C-alpha cells in the first residue's frame, strides 16, 4: 500500500507518523531514564527537552500533513490502515494538532513545575504515553481500537493524577479517578459488546453498513449505543460521567490538570464524533429516515445538562482551580452541541465549530491551568481571595490569565469568542432553540465567575505580604505562548477554520 504525500510515494503507515513520533518519544524517555535508573538522577532539562520536542514534532507533523492534504479529499483521501482499524483523515490530523500542541505546552511548563521532584522521568513518560493514546484515539476506526486507545490514554492518566504521592488530595483524586474510570470502561466495553451483538462487526464502517438495513436486535443495539455514549462521556467529562473531573483536576498537579482537561477531553470528543457519525448515522436518523435509536436527542439532553451543571456549580466555588474544573465540564457541554444540533443541511459547520472550539479551548484552558501551576509554584493560595492584587507582582501573567478567562467566557479578546459564535450559529441553523438558550444563559453566567478572578487580580487590594521571588522562565513562557495563541486565534480564526469545516463535512459523506 502506498500513498502519495507531496509528490513522494510512501508506505501508508507514514500517515500515522505523528502518533508514532509520540510513541517513539516515550521509548526514548525510557532509554534515557534507564541510563541513570535511580529516581531523580536523570536531568530534568534533558527529559523535558525530549518530551517537548517530541510533542512539538507530532504537532508540526500533523499540521504539515493537514496542510499537504494527507487523508483529505483534496489530497490522498482517507488513509485506511490495518483493514480499516485505523484511519488517517482531516479530523484525526486536526485532533493530533490539538493533542500535540497541548502536550508541548504542558511539557514546557512541567520543567519548572517538576523542579526538585523525584520520579521526573516517569512523569514525562506517562504524559507522552497518554498523548500517544490520544493520538491513536483520533485515528481509531473500530470499536476495538477505540477501546484499546482509550485505555492507553486513561491508565497513564490515573497514575499522573496521583503523581504527588505524599499529597493526600492527589492520591485520593487518583484513586477516585481510577474507580470511576474502571466503572466507565466496563460500561463502554459492555456497550461495545452489545453493538457487536447487534451488528456483527467492530469496524465502524462495517457497523454502519450492517445497521443500514433493518436491524433485528434493536433493543440490544439501543442499550449498546447509550452505553457507548456514556463510556465516551467519561472521557470528555460530560454529565453524568463527570464526577471524577472536579476531583481529579483539583487533586492533580496543575500541569496534569491542564493536560487532562484539554487534550484528554479533545481525544474523547474525537472518538465520540467518529463513532457516532461513522457507525450510527442511519440509526440516529441522520440518513433522513426515522431514528431507530434517537441518540441525537440523548446527546442534546446531555449537552444541556452538562452545560448547566458545569457552569452553575462553577459559579459557587471558592477555589479557582476547582472553578476551572467545573467550567471545563461546562465547556464539554458546549462542544457536545456539535453532535446535537444536526438537524440542518449544513452539519459540517456545527461540527467544525465544535472542533474549532476544542482547538481554541486547548490553548485557553491549558493556559489557565498553567497559570494555576504558576501560582502553585509561587505558593499563592488556591482561593479567589488569595489572588487579590496579584497583578501588582506579576502583571504579565495576570494579563495572560485575563485573556484566557475572558476568552473562555466568550468575550472578543480571544478565539473563544468566534468559536462560541459559530456554535451559536450552528444551533440557530438547526433550530435547536433549547441548546441556543442554554448556551447563552450559561455563557452569561460563566462571565460572572470568570470575572471574579479578574477582579481579584486587578481590582482588589492585596491582603497578604507575600513576595514573588522568582519567575520560572519555562512556565512563564508556556503561559505567554498560550495567551498569545489564544489572542491570535481571534484574527487568525479564519485561517484554520476551513480545515476544521472540511474535515467535519467529510464525516457526513
Amino acid at each position, binding site marked *: 500500500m502506498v500513498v502519495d504525500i507531496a509528490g513522494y510515494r510512501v508506505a501508508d503507515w507514514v500517515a500515522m507518523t505523528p502518533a508514532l513520533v509520540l510513541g517513539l518519544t516515550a521509548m526514548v524517555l525510557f532509554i534515557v531514564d534507564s541510563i541513570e535508573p535511580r529516581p531523580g538522577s536523570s536531568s530534568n532539562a534533558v527529559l523535558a527537552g525530549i518530551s517537548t520536542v517530541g510533542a512539538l514534532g507530532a504537532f508540526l507533523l500533523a499540521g504539515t500533513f493537514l496542510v499537504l492534504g494527507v487523508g483529505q479529499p483534496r489530497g490522498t483521501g482517507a488513509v485506511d490502515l490495518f483493514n480499516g482499524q485505523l484511519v488517517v483523515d482531516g479530523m484525526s490530523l486536526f485532533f493530533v494538532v490539538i493533542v500535540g500542541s497541548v502536550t508541548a505546552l504542558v511539557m514546557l511548563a512541567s520543567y519548572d513545575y517538576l523542579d526538585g521532584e523525584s520520579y521526573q522521568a516517569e512523569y514525562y513518560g506517562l504524559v507522552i504515553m497518554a498523548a500517544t493514546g490520544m493520538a491513536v484515539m483520533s485515528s481509531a476506526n473500530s470499536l476495538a481500537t477505540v477501546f484499546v486507545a482509550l485505555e492507553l490514554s486513561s491508565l497513564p492518566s490515573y497514575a499522573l493524577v496521583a503523581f504527588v504521592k505524599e499529597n493526600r488530595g492527589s492520591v485520593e483524586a487518583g484513586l477516585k479517578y481510577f474507580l470511576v474510570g474502571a466503572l466507565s470502561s466496563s460500561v463502554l466495553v459492555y456497550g461495545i459488546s452489545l453493538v457487536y451483538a447487534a451488528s456483527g462487526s467492530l469496524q465502524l464502517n462495517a457497523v454502519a453498513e450492517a445497521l443500514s438495513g433493518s436491524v433485528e436486535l434493536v433493543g440490544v443495539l*439501543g442499550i449498546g449505543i*447509550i452505553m457507548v455514549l456514556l463510556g465516551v462521556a467519561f472521557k470528555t467529562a460530560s*454529565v453524568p460521567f463527570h464526577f471524577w473531573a472536579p476531583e481529579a483536576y483539583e487533586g492533580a498537579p496543575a500541569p496534569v490538570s491542564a493536560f487532562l482537561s484539554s487534550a484528554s477531553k479533545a481525544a474523547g470528543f474525537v472518538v465520540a464524533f467518529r463513532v457516532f457519525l461513522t457507525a450510527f448515522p442511519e440509526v440516529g436518523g441522520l440518513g433522513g429516515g426515522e431514528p431507530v435509536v434517537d441518540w441525537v436527542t*440523548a446527546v442534546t439532553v446531555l449537552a444541556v445538562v452538562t452545560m448547566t451543571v458545569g457552569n452553575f*456549580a462553577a459559579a459557587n466555588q471558592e477555589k479557582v482551580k476547582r472553578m476551572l474544573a467545573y467550567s471545563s465540564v461546562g465547556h464539554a457541554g458546549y462542544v457536545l452541541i456539535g453532535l446535537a444540533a444536526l438537524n440542518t443541511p449544513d452539519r459540517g459547520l456545527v461540527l467544525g465549530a465544535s472542533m474549532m472550539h476544542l482547538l481554541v479551548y486547548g490553548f485557553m484552558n491549558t493556559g489557565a491551568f498553567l497559570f494555576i501551576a504558576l501560582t502553585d509554584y509561587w505558593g499563592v493560595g488556591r482561593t479567589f481571595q488569595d489572588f487579590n492584587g496579584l497583578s501588582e507582582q506579576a502583571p504579565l501573567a495576570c494579563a495572560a490569565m485575563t485573556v484566557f478567562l475572558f476568552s473562555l467566557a466568550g468575550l472578543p479578546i480571544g478565539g473563544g469568542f468566534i468559536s462560541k459564535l459559530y456554535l451559536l450559529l450552528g444551533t440557530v441553523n438547526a433550530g435547536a432553540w433549547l441548546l441556543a438558550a442554554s448556551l447563552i444563559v450559561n455563557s452569561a453566567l460563566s462571565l*460572572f465567575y470568570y470575572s471574579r478572578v479578574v477582579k481579584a487580580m486587578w481590582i482588589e487590594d492585596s491582603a497578604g505580604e507575600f513576595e514573588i521571588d522568582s519567575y520560572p522562565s519555562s512556565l512563564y513562557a508556556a503561559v505567554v505562548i498560550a495567551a498569545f495563541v489564544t489572542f491570535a486565534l481571534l484574527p487568525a480564526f479564519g485561517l484554520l477554520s476551513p480545515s476544521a469545516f472540511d474535515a467535519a463535512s467529510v464525516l457526513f459523506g
Partner: protein
Amino acid sequence: MAGAFDFVPAIAALPLLAFVIALFAGQYMPKRGAEAGIAATAGSLILSIWTALTVAGMTGSETFYNENLYTWVAGVADSAVTLRLGVLVDPLTALMLVIVSLIALLVHVFSLGYMNDEGETGLPRYYAGLGLFTASMLAFVFSNNILMAFMFFELVGLCSYLLIGFWFREDGPPSAAKKAFLVTRFGDYFFLIGVVGIFATFGTGLFAPVEAASGTMESFPHMAEMAIEESETFFGYGAQTWMTILGLLVLGGVVGKSAQFPLHTWLPDAMEGPTPVSALIHAATMVAAGVYLVARMYGFYALSPQALAVIALIGGFTALFAATMGVVKQELKQVLAYSTISQYGYMMLALGAGGYVAAVFHLTTHAIFKALLFLGAGSVIIAMHHNENMWDMGGLKDKMPVTYWTFLSGSLALAGIVPFAGFWSKDEVLFEALIHGVGTEGTLGAMFLLAYAMGLLAVFFTGFYTFRMVYLTFHGNARTDVARDPEPVRWNVKAPLAVLGIGAATVGLVNMAPVEKLTGLHIDFLHQWLDGPEEGGWPDALSTDLHHYEELLHNVPHVDPAYPIGGEQTTLIVSAALSLGLALGGVLLARSLYGVDEPVEHTDKLGGAKALLTHNYYQDESQVWLAQGVTVPLARAADKFDQGVVDGVVNGVSSVSLFTGSRFRRIQSGVVSNYAALMTLSLVLLLVAFVVLGGVA
C-alpha cells in the same frame, strides 16, 4: 487658484488654535493669551470679509460654496446614513461670519480692559474659553448639515457654561452656569430627537444641495418640499404634519438657546459671567445661534403653517413679556439681559411671520447695538468698581463722555428711534408681521396679528426701560461716592465702544426698506444680498434665497402680504409712525419719571404688579416647583422601580443561580461510591428514556 472659500474652515480653525495656545501657553504670555485670541479673531474677521466679498462677486465668478469635506461615518449599504462635515457658504453665512468675527474681535480687545487691567487671575482659561466659544460659533455658522450644526451648537452651549462659571469660586456664577447649561440642554434634547428624526426621514441632514462627483445630493428642506407636494406619509403621519413635528422638535433647541419663553430663565442669571462674555453671548454667539438656525433651515419651516404660527407667537409673546420684566430691574446688566430676550423675540416674530429679511436684519443690527450696550455697561461697571446697581450711579455723563455717547447711540438703537439701526430693523419686523397677518387667511393670519400686537406693545416698554436705564446711570446727580469719582477706563475699552457706537448709528442704513419703497431708490442692500441675482448664481444652486422662501410661503402655508391702510406706502408710513410713536412715548415717560436730578423709585405705583414683575412672573419659582414637585418624585419612583423591580429581578436571577449552583455542588459529595451509584442510576434513566420509552425495545 486658492480662493476665499478654501480658507473658510480656517475662519473657525484660527480661534480654535487660539484656544489651544491660550490654554497651554497663555500663562507665559504678557497678556495671558489675549494676544492669541486677538490675532486669531482678527484673522477670522479678515477671512470672513474676504469670503463676504467673494460671495458678493467682487473677487471672482464663484459666489457660493457647498462641499462635504470629511466623512466621519460612512454608511455601508445604499440606504445607510453617511455622516459628514462640510461647509456651506451663501450670503447668510457670509454675513453672519462677519458679524461673529467682528464682535469676537472687539470682545477680545475689550477684555484687555475688563479682565487684564482689573488684575483677574485664571486669564489663560478665560481666553481659551473665548477662543473655543468663537470657534464653535463660527463652525456652527458655516455647517452644511444639521448634525454638524448640532455638534457645534452643543459646543457653544458647553463654552457658555465654562465662561459664565468663570468665577467659579463665588456662589453665583457656578449655579448660573449650571442653570444655563441645564435649561438649554433641556431644549437641545428635543433638538437631538429632531436631528435623528430628520436623518431617519430623509437620510440626509444637508441644508442645501451638494454637487458631488456622483451626482447631486439633495437637501432635506427640498426633500420635504417634494414629499408635501406628493402627499407622502411618514410613520403614519401626513407629510405636512410630520414636517411640523420635526420642525417643532428642532425648535426646542432654538427656544432654549435663543432664550425664548419658556426656556429664557437661564439668560438673566447668566449675567453672573464676565461682562465681555455676556456681550459675546448676547450679541453674536450663543443666543444668536438659535435664531440663525431657524434662518438657516427656513426652507423647512416655511413648509409648515403650524410651526410658523408657533414661532411667531413665541416670538411676539417673549418680546412683550421680557420687556415688561425689564422695566423694574435695579441692575444695569439685568435690564440688558431682558432686553436681549425681548429683541430675540422680535427676530422669532419676524421669522414666524414670513419676514426672513427682517429677521436677519434685526439679527445684524441687534448684534451691533447689543454688543455696544454690554461693552458700555462693562465700562460703567469698571468705573463703578463692579457695582451694577443703577440706583448707586447717576451723573456719569460728564465723567465718561465716550461711554455715555456710545451708550446713548446703542440705547437709541435699542429703543428704535429713527435713524438709529434698531429703528429700521424693528420697523421692518413689525411691518412684515402686520402685512402678512392681514394678508394671510384663517387662523395663521390671526396668530400673526396677535403676535404683531404683542410686538407693537413691547416697543413702548422697550423705549421706557432703555431710557430709564440711561437716565438712572448717566443723568441726574451722582448718588454715591464711587459715582462721584469713577475709575477711568483706557483705550482698549473706548476703542471697541467707538467702533460699535458708530455702527449702531449707521448699520441700519444697509436696508432702509421704507425709504426704498417711498422714494424708489434701490438702497435695500440687505434685501438684495439675501435675494441674489434673478437668474442663475447661488439661488439656483442652493435654494436658500429669499425669492425661493417667498414662493414657499406663498405656495404651502399661503402666507401673503396685504396692505390694510391704503396702499403699500401708506401702510408703511402708518406702521413706522406707530412704532416710532410708541417708542418715543416710552422714552418720554422714562424722561418724565427718571430724567430729574434726584430720581426716586416709582415701582410702588405698580402695586401688586411690582412683585410679579420683580419676581419675573414667578417663573423661576414655578420651574423650581416643577423640578422639586414633579420631577423629583418621578425620579424617586423611577429609582424605586429600578432598585426594586429591575435590580430585584437581576438579584433574584443571580441568587437563584447561586442557589442552584450550591445544590449542584452538593451532588459532588466526595464519596466515590455515591458517584458510582449516581452514574449507574443515570445510565438506567437514559436507558429507560431512550430505549424503553423511545420504543426501541
